């Protein structure tokens, strides 16, 4: 309706109100899921599925334990190192493969195949190559996280409108200038989508690495609790990971949306 386009403020307010209603619905849905969890705990018994309240209090007890900061720090260190490597190396490789058409065509099916294989089977290989310890965990996080970053960045660069690149050539920008002022800004929304998936998979990879290749970290606590059938600890660590991962992913998603809206407006 043209009348609303004429008054952008009104449209912005409408979007805000709609977003607000949506967040309310999402909150309701989360409350519903917690109720479902409570009902499940009631039916299955507290040994099989501890109730939400019991899980939260157990989590508080675990986090209050003097060993916990050491485990959490170990996981955080491995995860953020792996994330930095996945994002930086993935971005550079993705930009290069996106810019060079033939190289991209040659490597894309290989990367897609690598993305689809269950990389958990490579854990013995990683252990044999890196030994037990933090480097094996980091390597595990990186092999999980880097491929989606490469694939998304590559496709983002390929989809840049040709006229942008022609203008860059007309202005005789250097390669670094073209990358910094044309390619990265134009491809940013899709790159952020790739980062979002890369983030999730790096976390998954690091945790799996910790479950097998470590004596420390959240993944190790988890596998120990799984082996001893300590469902209360498993559920509270799972809750911690779910909350942290969802929060980080929601923040990246909000950034993603803003960039896309910005890109459409520009």
């Amino acid at each position, binding site marked *: 309706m043209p009348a609303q386009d004429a008054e952008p403020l009104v449209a912005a307010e409408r979007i805000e109100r709609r977003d607000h209603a*949506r967040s309310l*619905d*999402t909150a*309701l*849905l*989360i409350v519903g899921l917690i109720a479902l969890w409570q009902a499940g705990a009631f039916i*299955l018994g507290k*040994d*099989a*599925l501890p109730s939400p309240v019991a899980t939260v209090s157990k989590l508080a007890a675990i986090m209050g334990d003097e060993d916990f900061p050491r485990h959490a720090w170990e996981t955080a260190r491995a995860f953020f190192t792996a994330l930095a490597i996945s994002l930086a190396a993935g971005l550079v490789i993705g930009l290069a493969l996106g810019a060079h058409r*033939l190289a991209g*065509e*040659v*490597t894309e*099916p*290989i990367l*897609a*195949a690598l*993305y*689809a*294989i*269950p*990389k*958990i*089977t*490579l*854990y*013995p*290989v990683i*252990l*044999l*190559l890196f030994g037990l310890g933090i480097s094996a965990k980091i390597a595990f996080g990186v092999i999980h996280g880097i491929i989606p970053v490469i694939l998304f960045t590559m496709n983002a660069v390929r989809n840049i409108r040709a006229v942008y690149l022609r203008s860059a050539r007309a202005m005789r920008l250097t390669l670094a200038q073209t990358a910094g002022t044309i390619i990265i800004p134009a491809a940013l929304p899709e790159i952020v989508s790739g980062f*979002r*998936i890369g*983030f*999730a*998979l790096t*976390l*998954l990879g690091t*945790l*799996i690495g910790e*479950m*097998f290749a470590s004596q420390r970290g959240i993944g190790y606590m*988890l*596998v120990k609790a*799984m082996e001893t*059938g300590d*469902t209360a600890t*498993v*559920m509270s*660590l*799972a809750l911690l*990971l*779910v909350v942290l*991962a*969802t929060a*980080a*992913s*929601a923040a990246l*998603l909000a950034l993603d949306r803003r960039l896309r809206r910005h890109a459409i407006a520009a």
Partner: protein
Amino acid sequence: MTHAGLIRLALILGALALLEWACRYGFVSREAVIPPTVMLQGAWRALASEETRGEILWTLQNVALSLVLSLIVGSAAGLLLHKATRLRRALDPLLASYYAVPTFVFYPLFIVLFGLNRWPLIAIGFLFAVVAVIINTLDGLARIPRAFVRTAAVMRLTPAQYAVHIILPAAAPWLFTGAKFAVAYSFIGVIAGEFVVSGAGMGHAIAFAYNSFDNRMMYGLIVLLFAIVGSINMLFWSFERRLYARAGR
């Protein structure tokens, strides 16, 4: 074969030859990596043993069950959510961050629910795969052109006709993407479960071979697994290509 395809083949063969050479001449420790030709011997040995064939079959059955369940439930849930607009919007942020959650931590819960058999593994594979199917079904349905929907209404298509003549062709690329992800994620979920706690299947066999220092068997099984996943992907890929070629895209 295309130009890019030839280079790709040469690249892969070159990498394998380099690995073979590096292993044979001791640049890589034989305890860590064995030459590709020896890996192939290991794969052959794994296939020749009846016990290992049983493990492979068990894993493939689990993956197939997880795949079928996730495709049916995922596309049905996608269709329902597409109709229930408000629920879909509320669910959107949760679906988008779903894959940040390491699903396999719920494995002990499924053991309590289903007992120590194949179903906890299938449940993990299913949970991993079903959301990819839902997301892609929703994407596909959202991108059916309005004109198609109106034309279908004008022609008074029945729901079944609408599904076959409108939804399937128009949403095919997204449905295919969902199916491809479902294959990959079913494999990842099932194998991860077998690694972590199960006493059977390919994942267990690989972990067992590793723990008993049987590198040949371990690499042989890994090669077999990658070959199976790779050929399923290739099948999907070529089928998709042919479908689009026929549709003239």
